[in-house]
């Protein structure tokens, strides 16, 4: 094991901002800040209640623009995709299908669910974390994919 690029301070500050956002959404709208759930409600809407979801998603992008404008961290031009386009398609499909079937992603289960001490979210978080680590191990160390 070799530890690289460790940035605990911005990571913690960013995490706290995410936590504040989730707490604010719960306090004001009584909603859980699960991104896959919020986005899923736009992609195939239930009746009503779509507008706040669209505005929230636009906010996610606005947050990224504010980060770039005020240069709050490493330049985004340094960010490159880690796989080729065909694997990006497979990955995107898996994330879409998986978060829909499993009713949540890193935010909904990993942050909001664990904070509510939901046993479902604990199991979900352990499952996707393990699955992701196994996938990285296969790709990086067994030379698969």
């Amino acid at each position, binding site marked *: 094991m070799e530890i690289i690029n460790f940035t605990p301070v911005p990571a913690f500050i960013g995490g706290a901002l995410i936590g504040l956002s989730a707490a604010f959404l719960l306090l004001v709208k009584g909603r859980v800040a699960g991104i896959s759930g919020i986005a899923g409600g736009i992609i195939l809407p239930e009746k009503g209640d779509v507008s706040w979801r669209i*505005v929230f998603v636009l906010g996610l992008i606005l947050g990224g623009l504010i*980060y770039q404008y005020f240069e709050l961290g490493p330049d985004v031009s340094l960010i490159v995709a880690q796989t080729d386009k065909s694997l990006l398609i497979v990955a995107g499909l898996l994330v879409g299908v998986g978060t829909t079937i499993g009713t949540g992603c890193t935010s909904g289960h990993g942050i909001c669910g664990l904070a509510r001490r939901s046993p479902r979210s604990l199991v979900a978080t352990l499952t996707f*974390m393990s699955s992701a680590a196994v996938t990285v191990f296969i790709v990086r160390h067994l030379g698969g994919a």
Partner: protein
Amino acid sequence: MISLLAALAAGTLFGLGLAVAGMIDPAKVINFLDPLGTWDPSLAFVMGGGLLVNAIATPLIMRRKTPILAEFFRTPSKQQIDKRLIIGGVLFGAGWGLAGYCPGPMITSLSFANSDIITVVGAYIVGTLIARTLLRAWERDQLTEKQRAERSCIE
């Protein structure tokens, strides 16, 4: 209107947090998921920061009878751990590990969209659409089967 502004503020704060935390860099995410190789433990601190704030704030907020701008809290009430939860987690994890993108960072990355980001977001939308459509049909079937079973009980 105020309610929409609140949603915009929450989304913006969330996106800003993801960017500051470094979650928008898939290399950082994949290195976090690689403790046996080149490990970047930073994302544990993202989760730690988010959990710390939420673990304190959530119980305080839930003491209220209602949210400020809504009639009731819509937190998930389901307790049961079923196959669906596990299968979904395994599939999501595989996709997350493969490219380093989970839904939030993927969407925030549209603020500097290039063809790679558009590809992964497009695939995510298609995947969600397919799964939601199938789930809806399946849930409808479950319902009719249940109704059928009930009917046969009566007969």
